């Protein structure tokens, strides 16, 4: 099938940075990054907007940079959203075939899917993604649609992501004011997973944890399908804040100390001595005992990871064969993989981007995982749209266009 080159833009309005990535999806489905526009965010806290005008200025700036860098006029974006209010639940819709109708038809499947999507959610919530996980036919798992097979009951297993409608609307409003169109709204960890996990990892079972500035997003894939996703409103900012609260250092210094000296592993060897920040002239302006610094960091991150672990469905950890993939800026913390291993006991990966050309160096950076994941998400969506309806289930998931 001949496909033409298409340009997608991913936008993530994160707690620490606002980032636009312009990517070109080539005909051979390789992605080329044309440009990145990035600005430090202001007005975002824990993944949510708290100062609208500030973040609007930031986004404007980022947009200008991205257009500059990529030499593309950006018209529409895929928007990644996050925030503690967004959560993913699994729901299964069961449809019993009417008597005298032994073969599953398309209508029956649709019926099951409709039922499955009707998760009971709080009244102010809206659906972000109903993602089909798999089908069940008389208790037997089918990864693709069982249309045409014999059976009595059809079940559709969905992972439904939902969040507070108004908050998501505000994010969309923000983007529309640029003015930009929103192609789709994607829950961050799902976008991240597109980038971080290859098909094999998803099949084997993998957990993506995206620890950003204000939130920790996670998505769990088991058997090739998404099983859990969610967001914990804790991120790198909290680490900085902890350092600030414990040591009394100002934020800027706490932040620098965190980045230059912090270590999250509980290895006592790395906790010996004093961590110093030197000013321009090489004098130590801040001295903090490494033991304390690392302990503050470690306890925070450990707690966060444990919260993630706690929210995963029971026994899912054992099912993770592929490993745990860490992305996000905070995952750059020294010793973080040691800590993650300690908690999850699985292989720990920091994903590198495959099949992406462009300014390679910057894309290995886990901080861009989500935005680049958005491009891949767009690419997949594109593929699915282009494919004939029957093949939708082939990839094992379906995306609903965002419609509110």
């Amino acid at each position, binding site marked *: 099938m001949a496909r033409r080159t298409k340009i997608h833009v991913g936008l993530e309005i994160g707690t620490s940075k606002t980032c636009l990535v312009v990517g070109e999806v080539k005909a051979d489905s390789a992605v080329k990054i044309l440009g990145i526009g990035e600005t430090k965010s202001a007005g975002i806290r824990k993944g949510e907007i708290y100062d609208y005008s500030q973040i609007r200025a930031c986004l404007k700036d980022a947009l200008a940079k991205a257009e500059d860098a990529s030499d593309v006029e950006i018209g529409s974006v895929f928007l990644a959203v996050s925030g503690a209010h967004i959560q993913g639940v699994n729901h299964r819709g069961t449809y019993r075939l009417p008597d005298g109708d032994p073969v599953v038809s398309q209508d029956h499947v649709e019926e099951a899917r409709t039922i499955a999507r009707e998760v009971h959610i709080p009244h102010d919530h809206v659906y972000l993604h109903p993602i089909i996980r798999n089908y069940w036919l008389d208790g037997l798992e089918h990864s693709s649609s069982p249309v045409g097979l014999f059976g009595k009951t059809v079940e559709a297993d969905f992972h439904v992501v939902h969040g507070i409608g108004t908050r998501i609307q505000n994010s969309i409003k923000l983007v529309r004011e640029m003015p930009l169109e929103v192609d789709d709204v994607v829950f961050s960890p799902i976008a991240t997973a597109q980038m971080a996990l290859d098909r094999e990892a998803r099949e084997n079972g993998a957990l993506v944890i995206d620890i950003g500035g204000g939130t920790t997003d996670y998505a769990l894939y088991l058997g090739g399908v998404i099983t859990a996703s969610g967001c914990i*409103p804790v991120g790198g900012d909290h680490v900085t804040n902890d350092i600030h609260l414990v040591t009394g250092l100002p934020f800027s210094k706490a932040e620098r100390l965190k980045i230059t000296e912090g270590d999250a592993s509980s290895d006592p060897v790395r906790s010996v001595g004093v961590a110093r920040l030197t000013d321009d002239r090489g004098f130590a302006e801040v001295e903090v005992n490494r033991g304390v610094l690392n302990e503050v960091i470690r306890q925070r991150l450990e707690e966060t990871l444990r919260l993630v672990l706690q929210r995963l469905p029971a026994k899912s950890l054992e099912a993770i064969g592929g490993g745990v993939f860490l992305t996000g800026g905070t995952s750059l913390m020294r010793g973080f993989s040691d800590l993650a291993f300690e908690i999850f006991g699985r292989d720990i990966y920091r994903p590198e981007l495959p099949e992406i050309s462009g300014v390679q160096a910057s894309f290995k950076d886990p901080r861009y995982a989500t935005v680049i994941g958005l491009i891949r998400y767009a690419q997949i969506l594109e593929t699915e749209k282009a494919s004939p309806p029957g093949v939708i289930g082939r990839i094992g998931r379906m995306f609903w266009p965002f419609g509110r």
Partner: protein
Amino acid sequence: MIPYSRVTKDIIPTSSVKIIGLGGAGANMLERIALDGMEGAELLALNTDVRTLGSCLAKEKIQLGLNLTKGLGTGGDPDLGRQAVLEAEEQIRAAVKGCRIVFLCAGLGGGTGSGASAIVTRIAREEGAFVVVFATMPFAFEGKRRREQAETALNELAVLSNALVTFDNNRMGELVLAKQGIHEAFVAADHMICESIKAVIRLVIRPGLINVGLDDLMSALRTNRSRCLFGSGIASGKDRASRALRNALSSPLLDQGSLLKEAQTVLVHLCGGEDLTLYEIELLMQRLQKYVPESAHMLFGAAIDPVMGDSLSLTLISALPEDALTSAPRHALSQTSGETPPLEFIQAVTPEPEKVLVVEVPAPQVEEIPPAIIEPEPPAVVEPEPPAVVEPEPLPEPPAVVEVPVPVKESAPSESLISKFRRSLIGSAPVAPTLFDTNRPFAESDPIPSKNTEVIQTPVEPPAAHSQETPAEIEQPPVVNEPPAPEPKPEPSPVVVADFVAVSKEPSEASYIEADPDPKPIENDEDFNIPSLESAGFTPIPRKRPVGVTPWAGTKDGDRSLKLGAEIPAPTPAPPAPEESSTAASAVETESPKLKLGIKTAGPQSELSFDSTPRGRFEGEGPNMIDGEDLDLPPFLRKKK
């Protein structure tokens, strides 16, 4: 069994270590030792009571008073015990012949234990052995008579033995819960003794990388009139260093480490498998610093024993004079019990809300030092205390000889034997002097060691002077006067010292000690000989405080002032006089729980407390509640582990 030694130079052959259980209590201890398995030593039971003797697990047994008591006990009569043991003198002499070290376990107060222990000790010493006596003192309820008998025996033993470790049964009662059976209480007590014997044997027998030997042991146990502080912990796996320390400190004899802070000499022995790392040692020692006063003399030893596998054992041995224990520690216990375990957290917490509180700390600490230093002196130089002590030989002797405390009556041959043995143990001469530094007890009673006391001055003083100079000169003038007093006084007139001591040991000081159970550990890390290690766990704040907080913070180290600015005024009130400081300290003490509460409450419940805690950049936001925890507060402060 054919005894042989793999490494002839250092290892003491098994056959030359003997553990003697004397009397009924001794038999019990011996039994416990046998049950717990003791490699590297032979067991010998001595008793007048044939029945107990018969059921004893020891390999060798000698019945005392074969003709005198005819297999019965002594009925609590020490004289009978003494005569009985004399009957068996030849047998005992034969049994201990060739032994290098003899551990004598006896329960004092009864007939056999009180009567025979001194004689057995003497016999062993005559045979050239180094004798360490583990004695239990009777319960208070056993009556005054037995107590007196025990004390008489104890005084004799103090003279005769090379090292004396006393366990008070009253104290042992605290080992177990009140409602637990008496059997368990005794088992626990015996276990304790057994552990310490084992530890001592391990320490003496295993040649270490950093060696500690009997000499160090003796200085750690200020033999006479002191109670042994003993803690031993084993841990393996990750983080074993700190867990071993925790285990060791959990020994009831240490009161969670709170007793250690009055110790002047602490012997620390580490034994680990081949993967023992220097970092672990550093880490551990650093943690330990929090429990031990700066001025304390740390005798550190480390050994590699492949048998240990990946586990690490830590042994802490120290001694406190009995009088120091009577008042202070109990209080310390009651006060600290709640606080000590989370000590690390408390420290960690300190920076923010407790600033003022912590600041006070340095002051009391400094004041505390002088007494600590002075205290050792009186027994050494003054002779008021030793009650029933016999003094066969003239008191002072030239310091040069030093190395061996010669048995009282004993003559050259045995000394040379011992000293040879010693040297082989010690390996290097320089260690020798330090060894005796806390041997006051001998000084009191045993003439020869008394010469050691002169030598002692050297080791003790330098650390003292060292540790003190800094705080003293900077802290506050009043204290400065004090150090000079102890310093020039290798042998001042007894009177002066006595006065001095009297002053410094006033109740106020004692109460003060009680008053600050936890601040002390906080800062001990300042002056320790392993230089670079400080970080490890949680020391940072203390680390800074001693330097920064004190009045000169402004002049020096100004740049270090992380958050010291506000605190500087605080210390000034505290220093003036010990009396004041005690009140100050207690005031601080009362304050502290409140402050801590403010932080703690943030955790499990109550939104009320949110306002009270600073939340940094999330100030003013609604609580970020998940599972009852406000995620915006640092877990580090939430005490969530």
